[in-house]
């Protein structure tokens, strides 16, 4: 029974990851079309033209992946064949694993048995995410090197420098969050955001750590190598950067790792700053609105509401990232490094120091 439960939660975590990734493909294509005022993907218009725009589901969800998977896989003649094959796996695999520690709901009670809605209940959850995200660099750097192409190589080198630089800002943002909640466990952090401030406002992390939120979001976008930080693949300078020499299914794996990184940034911001699976005023036995109005809700419905709330928040932040990606121009390389080292790093350090001092002064405000 325990085995079935852990298998089930792991399956749900993996499905969340895959679904977000696939849906992001659609959101990005149709969203960019919306932003740039063009039609975009235009096959399979559902609901007979009743919607204001064409959904284009066949293009994005069926034709695109099929085309990528069945295309010829070209390996450059002078490439290092083994590493060229290995790099896409290195890029995708660790990112999949991050979803193992993401809590997508509170406990689900079935027949007196409490199921924690998280694939792996790891006490160092935040560190695990940080470790897996930092391992994602290898795909970029190895892929760039193994292709034996100048463009790909420059992209790989840029990517590794950029990701190491922004990992520090990201780590500092996470440190201040950890100081606030006094735990590294993502599930406990999500639970700690269930209370209310002054009886009205949900006590989400964004109200305690607004600066850390901004830092984490910027550093996260830089980690996912997207505009305005897409220098590793800057198409106007480097063709396609580290993935220039990749085609077919291997390229689609790099693309997938890109989308998973977007999803991870959204998941992290949701879990750390926007209450994770919390629905405002919803507790385990139902809604408790301020003013003493209570509505009882069955346990299963509570769980479904929590998972829905989690997914909605994740998609909102995915959409914000796509909005940023299609609105901003690319930074110059020196601007990128200056932003990471001279702005985000000092702000992050100051935020950690301020959090620590405040936490000591207002003892009891932090975990312990």
């Amino acid at each position, binding site marked *: 029974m325990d085995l079935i439960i852990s298998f089930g939660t792991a399956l749900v975590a993996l499905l969340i990851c895959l679904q977000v990734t696939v849906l992001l493909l659609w959101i990005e294509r149709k969203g960019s079309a919306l932003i740039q005022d063009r039609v975009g993907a235009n096959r399979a218009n559902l609901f007979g033209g009743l919607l204001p725009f064409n959904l284009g589901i066949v293009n994005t969800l069926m034709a695109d992946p099929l085309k990528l998977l069945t295309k010829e896989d070209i390996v450059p003649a002078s490439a*290092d064949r083994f*590493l060229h094959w290995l790099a896409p796996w290195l890029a995708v695999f660790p990112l999949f694993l991050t979803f193992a520690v993401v809590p997508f709901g509170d406990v689900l009670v079935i027949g007196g048995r409490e199921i924690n809605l998280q694939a792996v209940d790891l006490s*160092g959850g935040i*560190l*695990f995410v940080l470790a897996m995200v930092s391992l994602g*660099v*290898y795909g970029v*750097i*190895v892929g760039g090197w193994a292709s034996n192409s100048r463009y790909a190589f420059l992209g790989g080198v840029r990517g590794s420098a950029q990701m190491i630089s922004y990992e520090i800002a990201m780590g500092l943002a996470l440190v201040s969050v950890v100081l606030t909640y006094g735990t*590294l466990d993502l599930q406990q952090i999500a639970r700690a955001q269930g209370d209310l401030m002054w009886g009205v406002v949900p006590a989400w992390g964004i109200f305690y750590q607004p600066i850390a939120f901004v830092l984490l979001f910027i550093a996260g976008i830089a980690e996912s190598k997207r505009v305005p930080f897409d220098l590793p693949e800057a198409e106007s300078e480097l063709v396609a950067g580290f993935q220039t020499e990749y085609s077919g299914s291997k390229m689609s794996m790099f693309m997938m790792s890109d989308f998973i990184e977007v999803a991870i940034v959204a998941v992290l911001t949701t879990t750390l700053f926007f209450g994770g699976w919390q629905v405002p005023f919803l507790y385990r036995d139902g809604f408790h609105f301020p003013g003493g109005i209570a509505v009882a809700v069955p346990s299963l419905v509570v769980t479904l509401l929590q998972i829905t709330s989690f997914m909605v928040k994740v998609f909102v932040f995915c959409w914000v990232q796509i909005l940023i990606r299609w609105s901003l121009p690319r930074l110059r390389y020196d601007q990128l490094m200056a932003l990471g080292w001279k702005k985000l790093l000092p702000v992050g350090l100051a935020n950690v120091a301020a959090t620590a001092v405040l936490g000591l002064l207002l003892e009891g405000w932090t975990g312990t």
Partner: protein
Amino acid sequence: MILFWVVAVLSVASALTVVLHRNPVYCALALVMALFQVALMFVALDAHLIALLQVIVYAGAIVVLFLFVIMLLSLEPDVPHPGRYTTRMASIALTVVLGVEIGAAVLVAQPGALAPPPVDFGSTRMIGQKLFSEYLLPFELTSVLLLVAIVGAVVLARRRA
């Protein structure tokens, strides 16, 4: 126990690859593998925090920098070179010393029933408390050492520029 043997064999194999492979990029990647195996050992020993830190710091940052430097210098696959006589002798002597040391340690060690670890062994809280009470001096000395290295790097970079 099965985990230990799998990890042990893999870690020795990847460590040998680090030393013996001709291509420096493969050596660096094998080093990542070796570090990963050590992290798995830590997990098997209930030291989860140390294992995660091992992956973040070594595999996630330091070896990336190694690779970065190797690629920037674009080192060619190593051609076998004779090496200086003294270097060779020194390396052989050091290997022998290390071997004797490990052998002695294995012989002296008394494999017996180990006391079960305390309840929150390896937890972040426990490590933090130890680090900031019992081991405060070594901890602070290490941070001073790191600070010296950082300042040194900045000074060197300034002089070059």
